[in-house]
Structure formats: structure tokens, C-alpha cells
């Protein structure tokens, strides 16, 4: 695959007079807004307009890459620079990565979510590196008075092989900055990749293992106060009265402030604040429905039976197909609310001063957080700075910026710099949940066991659209109806890693297994047959790539020795999400009468793998996450309040519970797609299907641990 990319003047410019000399290129990773080149005569960060990241080469040969996206464990601070360094032919040991601060004037997509960053910037990052390499080569050629075509770059040097000369990037940086920006650069053929596709270690490892203060929680400023907020325990209630006298009288307490539905305790240390907070006497009154999980169970049934559905996809004549079916299979799957529970609880530092606002902390959406702060405080955005720290996990929770705005509002009220900290209980009780969902499936088989009719009705509580109507098996079934119903609740929900598909994939893949079983077919062959049907006689639009899906299915079957192992029960699952394809096989063995998940094989097609070490880690982490939550995760409600408040009752998977995992990647050279999410959705289905194989029992509700196969003693 050979690539040549036009370097638009809008994407690139030469910035001269970098303090201390060297070459500085500004480029737009996510937007191409700047119409004309801008010459900047000072350090870049304060003064740049229209460029959202920078690649600089200083005279000592250090290559600095500013990474705009928040890092939350998806390893973007390593994988992005790898792409630039590849095309630059940089010496990786001399590459430094710096988290860029928020610059909303320039950034279109300075956020982390949806596994979208890498696909979005693949070409741009490569072109950035190749452009700098071109300018370094021009500089060397000029100095040596040879043709640029005779020079090559390798590992931080420009080389003229004919004469045996070479110059380091640092030595060339000043002169490179005076070279014209090339209009077009040739990108490498992927067979020449040296860095991309290899395993490169996380650039932050050293800081992490020595306990450096990288996270928002670690922000401490002179004169800073500490605050915690008591929010209502129950959704659907509001403050009636507050008696804060006892809390205020506690040592170290500076103030107790009531705003909106919040009672904030402000003090001189975290511990003093958390102690005083317990002495608050707050009365709440009803402000909406205070729902319990038992209510939700009824609501789901009512909605599925009699709600007014929104039709998401319809092919053929479903009613007729079911009337003439030889066999009908019906099934329902239920997914509970989940907490995001990133390891680092919510927190943010805010300092609202007359001359401007300073915000520091962990957020997946710094731009929106700043806009919301600006609106709330009536302070223009250019008076607000936002520094992005490393995030101690996100899983979607930090796409919401409620805690950022709270911190800013509080700082504005108390007129002091403050770090707002959420306890784990605050995080689990008052934030945001994966929506609870329930799916009702029906399948119609003809007399030869072909799937001719398919219905899926999805019901969600604040779930938005709880289906992905164009996903497989849509396109492979003649008569199909997918529709949805929704219940609006005061319980706040939000995107949770692999939104919707994190449970939907389990439900769909487990149901398909039921159907294959009823048809008397092998689950793998059953899926392959459906794909074949979609290829030969597609029904309606097909929005997944049949070949890529077929390929991961076959590869997973082969790698796992599908159907060839004695004494082991295997379950299959395949899913397309976030533009990537992942097939998984789970292996279960019976031990003391209980199914034990021993191993999961995963074959991923995310196009070109950038960092093999990071990629494996994302897949393994995704599987552990998917497996752990399918097994143990649930938040239930009683009168509007979450019943699980911390890790003693909200069970997360631990080391001794993990299965072995084997990861494989498809090597097809297709442009890369994300990997932070796609490995999670297939896991629940593979596990449930393997457990069915082992026990004859279908798991239809999560968490599995509450299901009969685990609760009854054999």
C-alpha cells in the first residue's frame, strides 16, 4: 500500500523563531479551519490559532509531540506519537510527548470517547511526520549540495549514502525551519514500517510506577481548599431544609454552602471535610418519581407488551413470516444499571478569580466542560484555562462534566481556589449509570431450519436508542423488525464503555445461539450461512463488512480449535462495533458442579495495529471488563437511591477470577480503527453460550452470578 498525500497549506505551516531554535510545525489533527499560514514568533502554545497540535524538533534532537486528547488508559499518548515518529523516521528514544492544554479555538475534537481518535487522525499524523522528514532532508541536501532524492532518513538522522555523510535531526532543525513546506509528501509503504505494528511501551510507565502526581486528584495548590458535596441520596428528591451548624463547628471547616441541590462542605483537608459532612442534617422532599428496581421490572414488561414503539428497521413482511414459520423461538434478556466506577473518583480543581478562571483535572470532554463553565459563570471562554491531567480511567463517566461545573460554581461562591472531591459513594450514588435495558427477541425458522423472520424490541430506561438496528443479522434475514420503547426516569444515565452494545451484543449473540440450537445447527456455521445469505441476496442496507466479519469468525474458530476439544464446552460470539470486528470463543469447564470460565480467544480486526503492546492490552482489558461486569455488575435502586454504594457491595472482577486470554489480530493493512471498546461487547455472549454448552442452562440476565447455575448448589 503506497500513499501520497497532498499537504494542504491549511493543514500545515512553518512556524519560525521557535525559542531556542529548531523546527516547529503546527498542524490540525481534527480540523482544517485555518485558511492562511500564520507565522509565529514566540512559543507556540499561547499564540497559535487554528492549529491544534505541534511537532517540534529542537536543536538537541529532541522531538516533542503535543498530544491533544485526554489520556485515560487507552494509550493514546503513546500510539499517536508512534505514528508521527514512524513517518518522521525519528529515534523513538528521543521522542517526548506532552499533553496539550485545552485550546477550543483550535480544536475540533479534543476529547476521548467512541474509539474515534485514531481513525480520525491516522493520515494527518502520518503526513505531519512525513512533512517534517521532507524538510529535514531538504535542509541536509542543501548543506551537502546534493539532490534531496539522494538522501534518506533513518532513526533520527538524514543520510547521504553515496558520500557516507549523515547529520542528526537536531543539527538540521534550524535550517529545516527555513525550507519550504512541501505541497505533497509520500507516505511510507507499510512494509517499511519500523515502529507501527510493534509493541512500544507506555510513555508514562516510569512516572506511574514511581508514584508521580499525574492525576487530577494529585493537584495541590498553595492556599487551596478542599470540598465535598452532599447530593440527594435518591433520584427524584430535592432539598427541603439544611442544618449545617454541627458540620460548620467541626475543626478545619471553612464554610458550608448550599447551591442547587448541593450542600458543599469546604475545609482545609479532605479528611476534615469528609468527617464534617457526616454531621449535615438535610431533609429532602419528593421532586419526581423515586423509582425502585421492582418498578423497573414492571415498567419493562409494560413497555415491551404495550408501549408505542419507534420502528428502527423493517424488512419484508414479518407478521406473515411468523404465521407460516415451522418453529418460533422467543426470548428476553435483561441488563441492569451499572456504575462506571473509574478507579480515580471524580474531582476537579477550580479557581475563579476576577481576572479569569483556572480549571485543572481529569475530563474526557475539556471543551464542553469549559463552555458549560463559561455559560454558568458568565465569564468568556478566553478567560478560562483548562489543564487536562491524566485520567484514572473514564469508561464514559468523564464525558459528563457535571463535576467540573460544580467545582467552578463552588469556587465562584466561596471566592477561593478549591479542589472538589467525590467519594466513591458519591460516584456510585449520584452520578451516571449505564442505562438498564431489556430486549425481547423472536425468531422464525422455516422447515429446513433457516432463519426467515427476526424481531427485536429494545426497551431502555433513559437509554436513547437501545438497539443497533443495522448490525448483523440485519441484512441476512428476509423479514425483520427492530423497534424500541423508552422509559424516562430521574435516574441519570450516560455512555458507558461501548455504549449500548456493551449489553446488546450479549443479548443478540446469546439469542442467535438459541436460534442456531433450535435449528440444529453449529453456531459458527449458522453465522457463516447467514453472512453468505447477506452477501448473495442482501436484504436492505448492509452496514458491516461481510468479508471482515466472516474472516474473524473463521479465524477465531481455527485458533480455538472450535468443536474439536474434548471435555471443554465452547461458546461463540462475534460483534461489529466502533468500526472494528471482534470474534471470541469462550471455554468453560465444570468444576465441583459449577461452570468455570477458563479461557477466551479473541480475534480482532481493527485494521492496521499501531502499538501491538497497547492493542493487546486494550483487548484483554476490554474482555476482563466485559466478563467482569457480565458476571458481577449491577446497581439496583430502592426508592430512588442506589443500593450499591462502594466496592464492598458493587462487585468488580479481581485477579483470581480472570480467565486466560489469547489475542490475535488480523493483518490486513486497512486504515486503523479504534480498539478501546470493540473487544468488550462480544464477551458476555461467548461466555453465556459456553455456559449453555456446559450446563444446558441459558443465562439471560446479568449479572450471571445471580442466575441459577451459580446460585444453586449441585
Amino acid at each position, binding site marked *: 500500500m503506497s500513499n501520497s498525500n497532498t499537504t494542504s497549506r491549511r493543514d500545515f505551516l512553518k512556524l519560525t523563531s521557535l525559542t531556542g531554535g529548531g523546527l516547529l510545525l503546527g498542524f490540525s489533527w481534527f480540523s482544517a479551519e485555518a485558511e492562511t499560514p500564520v507565522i509565529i514568533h514566540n512559543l507556540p502554545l499561547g499564540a497559535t490559532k487554528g492549529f491544534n497540535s505541534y511537532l517540534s524538533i529542537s536543536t538537541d534532537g529532541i522531538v516533542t509531540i503535543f498530544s491533544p486528547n485526554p489520556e*485515560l488508559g487507552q494509550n493514546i499518548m503513546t500510539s499517536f506519537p508512534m505514528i508521527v515518529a514512524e513517518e518522521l523516521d525519528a529515534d523513538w528514544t528521543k521522542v517526548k510527548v506532552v499533553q496539550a492544554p485545552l485550546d477550543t479555538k483550535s480544536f475540533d475534537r479534543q476529547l476521548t470517547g467512541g474509539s474515534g481518535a485514531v481513525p480520525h487522525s491516522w493520515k494527518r499524523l502520518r503526513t505531519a511526520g512525513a512533512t517534517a522528514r521532507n524538510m529535514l532532508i531538504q535542509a541536509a541536501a542543501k548543506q551537502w549540495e546534493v539532490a534531496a532524492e539522494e538522501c534518506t532518513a533513518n532513526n533520527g538522522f538524514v543520510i547521504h549514502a553515496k558520500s557516507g555523510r549523515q547529520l542528526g535531526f537536531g543539527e538540521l532543525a534550524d535550517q529545516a525551519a527555513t525550507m519550504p513546506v512541501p505541497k505533497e509528501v509520500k507516505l511510507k509503504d507499510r512494509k517499511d514500517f519500523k515502529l507501527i505494528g510493534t509493541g512500544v511501551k507506555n510513555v508514562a510507565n516510569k512516572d*506511574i510506577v*514511581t*508514584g508521580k502526581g499525574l492525576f487530577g486528584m494529585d493537584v495541590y495548590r498553595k492556599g487551596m481548599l478542599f470540598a465535598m458535596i452532599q447530593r440527594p441520596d435518591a433520584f427524584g428528591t430535592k432539598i427541603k431544609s439544611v442544618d449545617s451548624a454541627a458540620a460548620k463547628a467541626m475543626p478545619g471547616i471553612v464554610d458550608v454552602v448550599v447551591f442547587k441541590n448541593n450542600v458543599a462542605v469546604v475545609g482545609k483537608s*479532605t479528611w476534615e471535610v469528609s468527617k464534617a459532612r457526616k454531621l449535615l442534617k438535610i431533609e429532602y422532599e419528593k421532586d419526581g418519581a423515586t423509582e425502585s428496581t421492582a418498578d423497573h421490572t414492571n415498567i419493562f414488561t409494560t413497555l415491551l407488551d404495550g408501549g408505542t414503539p419507534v420502528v428502527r428497521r423493517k424488512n419484508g413482511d414479518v407478521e406473515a413470516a411468523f404465521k407460516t414459520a415451522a418453529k418460533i423461538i422467543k426470548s428476553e434478556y435483561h441488563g441492569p444499571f451499572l456504575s462506571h466506577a*473509574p478507579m480515580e473518583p471524580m474531582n476537579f480543581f477550580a479557581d475563579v478569580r476576577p481576572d479569569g478562571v483556572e480549571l485543572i483535572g481529569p475530563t474526557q470532554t475539556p471543551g464542553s466542560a469549559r463552555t458549560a463553565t463559561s455559560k454558568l459563570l458568565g465569564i468568556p471562554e478566553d478567560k478560562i484555562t483548562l489543564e487536562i491531567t491524566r485520567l484514572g480511567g473514564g469508561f464514559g463517566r468523564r464525558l459528563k462534566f457535571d463535576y467540573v461545573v460544580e467545582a467552578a460554581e463552588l469556587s465562584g461562591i466561596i471566592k477561593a481556589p478549591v479542589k472538589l472531591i467525590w467519594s466513591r459513594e458519591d460516584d456510585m450514588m449520584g452520578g451516571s449509570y449505564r442505562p438498564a435495558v431489556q430486549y425481547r427477541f423472536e425468531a422464525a425458522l422455516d422447515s429446513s431450519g433457516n432463519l426467515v423472520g427476526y424481531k427485536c424490541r429494545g426497551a431502555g430506561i433513559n437509554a436513547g436508542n437501545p438497539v443497533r438496528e443495522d448490525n448483523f443479522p440485519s441484512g441476512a434475514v428476509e423479514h425483520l423488525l427492530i423497534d424500541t420503547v423508552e422509559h424516562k426516569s430521574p435516574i441519570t444515565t450516560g455512555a458507558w464503555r461501548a455504549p449500548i452494545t456493551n449489553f446488546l451484543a450479549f443479548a443478540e449473540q446469546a439469542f442467535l445461539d438459541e436460534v442456531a440450537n433450535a435449528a440444529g445447527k453449529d453456531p459458527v456455521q449458522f453465522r457463516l450461512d447467514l453472512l453468505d445469505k447477506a452477501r448473495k441476496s442482501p436484504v436492505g442496507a448492509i452496514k458491516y463488512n461481510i468479508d471482515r466479519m466472516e474472516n474473524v469468525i473463521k479465524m477465531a474458530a481455527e485458533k480455538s480449535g472450535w468443536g474439536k476439544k474434548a471435555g471443554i464446552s465452547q461458546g461463540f460470539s462475534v460483534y461489529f462495533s466502533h468500526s472494528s470486528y471482534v470474534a471470541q470463543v469462550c471455554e468453560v469447564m465444570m468444576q465441583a458442579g459449577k461452570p468455570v470460565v477458563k479461557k477466551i480467544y479473541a480475534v480482532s480486526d481493527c485494521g492496521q495495529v499501531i502499538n501491538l*503492546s497497547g492493542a493487546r*492490552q486494550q483487548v484483554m482489558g476490554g474482555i*476482563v471488563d466485559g466478563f467482569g461486569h457480565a458476571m458481577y455488575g449491577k446497581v439496583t435502586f430502592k426508592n430512588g437511591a442506589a443500593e450499591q454504594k462502594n466496592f464492598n457491595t458493587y462487585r468488580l472482577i479481581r485477579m483470581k477470577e480472570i480467565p486466560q486470554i489469547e489475542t490475535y489480530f488480523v493483518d490486513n493493512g486497512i486504515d486503523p480503527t479504534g480498539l478501546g471498546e470493540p473487544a468488550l461487547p462480544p464477551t458476555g455472549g461467548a461466555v453465556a453460550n459456553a455456559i449453555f454448552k456446559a450446563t444446558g442452562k441459558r443465562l439471560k440476565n446479568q449479572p450471571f452470578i445471580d442466575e441459577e447455575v451459580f446460585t444453586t448448589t449441585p
Partner: protein
Amino acid sequence: MPVYTLKINGKQFKADVVADTPLLWVLRDHLGLVGTKFGCGIAQCGACTVHLNGVAVKSCVLPVSSIKAAAITTIEGLSEKGDHPLQLAWDEIDVPQCGYCQAGQIMTAAALLKRKPHPGEEEIDSAMHGNICRCGAYHRIREAVKLASTKI
């Protein structure tokens, strides 16, 4: 408020705090040692793990008044140059994802290796049971503990 003298990472520190302040918050809020993390506050996640006389303890539930003359080691003091076999193994195996839990994981593992330099897989798993990694880096954590145990 009483003033407590603490021996941390071989140095003496003074902290003027209320008696029931957990060591975690003394380290973080008062002494600037932020490597020890807050994750749950109820001894369930292990993010706050430090050593007390070489034994792994959860500092979020350890009142400062109970420590007395015991020697405390935090991640900052595990090694002088960040080259404890576990720290090196953590990089070698490329363990961290978000990284938030990792200081606690390493401290728990370090106490294990001190008492049992060559643990088997089951011993590793049960020693590490109190440490949650929400990112699910468990496979590599286990592998890195094994690797470090070969270097001790």
C-alpha cells in the same frame, strides 16, 4: 491538634492533624506524597496500599494515631531510583493502562515478594485479591510479579 512524628521512606515527617486522620490523607494532603491513591476509603480496592514495617496495609483505614514508631514505606520510597525489580518488571511487561491503581498493586506485590520471594500463581492471586484494577490489567500485573520474582 496533636503533632505526629512519622517515619516514612527512611525520613522523619511531622504532621499536625486530628487523631483519626487516615494515613492516606496525611500522606496526600499534609506531606505531599501523592503516589498513594484514594479509591474507595473502605479497604476494598487497594489503591492506597503502603507498607507498615514491611507489611502491606490499606492506608485509607489506618488512623495516624495508631502508627506510632512503625516504619512506613510508600511508592515514592520503594526504591531510590525507581528500579525495584517490580517497578522494572512493570515497565518491561508494560502493565499500566490508566495507571491509577498501579502504585497500590506494586506495593502489595512488593510486600508479597518480601515475605515470599518466589510465589506460585495461586499465592500471587490471593495476595493481590485486595487490589482492584478497573482497567483490567490483571494478566500483566500477575506476569510482572512473576518476572520480578525471578530477579530477586
